[in-house]
């Protein structure tokens, strides 16, 4: 028996000769088998087509939402790019030594404030240690 590939490679004239050959028996259910296959293919196509149609209607339904989201993303991106490019301020000082003096002043203020806060924290901790000592002594007795 020939394989499908061999049959595909066979020329039309050879196939016609074979079909006219009465000695080759045609299977009994070939015709109904072919009709069943064809109808099954048609049903499958219709089902696939239905899925495709449903997909398309989903996209159509939410098109407005998708387009709004895309517009927002585009506008946000353009806006952020514009804001960052336009709003860069100019250096106040041209001389690095003057800039350094300003940095020194700022860090001096920061240091003074942090030092004050740390000092208060230590003071509070010391004040809290006294009641703790009293409680510990009371619990020992």
């Amino acid at each position, binding site marked *: 028996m020939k394989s499908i590939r061999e049959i595909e490679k066979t020329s039309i004239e050879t196939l016609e000769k074979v079909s006219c050959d009465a000695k080759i028996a045609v299977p009994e259910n070939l015709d109904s088998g072919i009709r069943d296959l064809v109808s099954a293919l048609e049903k499958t196509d219709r089902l696939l087509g239905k899925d495709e149609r449903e997909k398309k209607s989903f996209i159509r339904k939410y098109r407005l939402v998708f387009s709004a989201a895309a517009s927002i993303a585009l506008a946000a991106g353009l*806006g952020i790019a514009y804001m960052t490019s336009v709003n860069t301020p100019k*250096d106040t000082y041209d001389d690095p030594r003057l*800039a350094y003096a300003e940095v020194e002043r700022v860090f001096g203020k*920061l240091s003074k404030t942090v030092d004050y*806060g740390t000092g*208060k924290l230590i003071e509070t901790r010391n004040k809290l240690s006294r009641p703790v000592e009293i409680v510990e002594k009371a619990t020992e007795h």
Partner: protein
Amino acid sequence: MKKIIVIIAALLLTDCLFAQSARSIYDKYSGMNEVEAVYISPAMFRMIGKLPSTEIDGNDVDFTNMVRNLRGLYVLEFDNSTFGRQLRSDVESMVRKGRYEKLLEAKEDGEITLIYALSDGEICKSLIILSLESGETDFVCIDGDISFSSIRNLNKQKKINEPDKL
């Protein structure tokens, strides 16, 4: 027509994305007449280069490592109490909307100093110092990667001299 309406609505909605930042506060007030404004860019910090040690209250402190990681310094000084109140309100609004947290509030000799930090673990990405004193308001914002240990060690010499207090 529908597309135009959608685009306009999108543009209006994006306004909420542009939350106030320190730079926007600086931009808002720096152009006003009664305000002294200072901005130092990352390029200027690079030019400063190796810094000499600086003295604070008689003790030497080295800012070099901290300054190299700075991305910007914004300073605003007001003598106008109206602008000062407005600025405080803007800063508090920015703190609420952003991820800033209050590190410190100190009241001393009639001056209130608030420090807010935007941090990522042990690294402080942005530090805001707001000082309020009888009509005068000072706003300082330091943008950069500053470790909290650097801020704590600003008074290194004091810590060495007074170890028992720590």
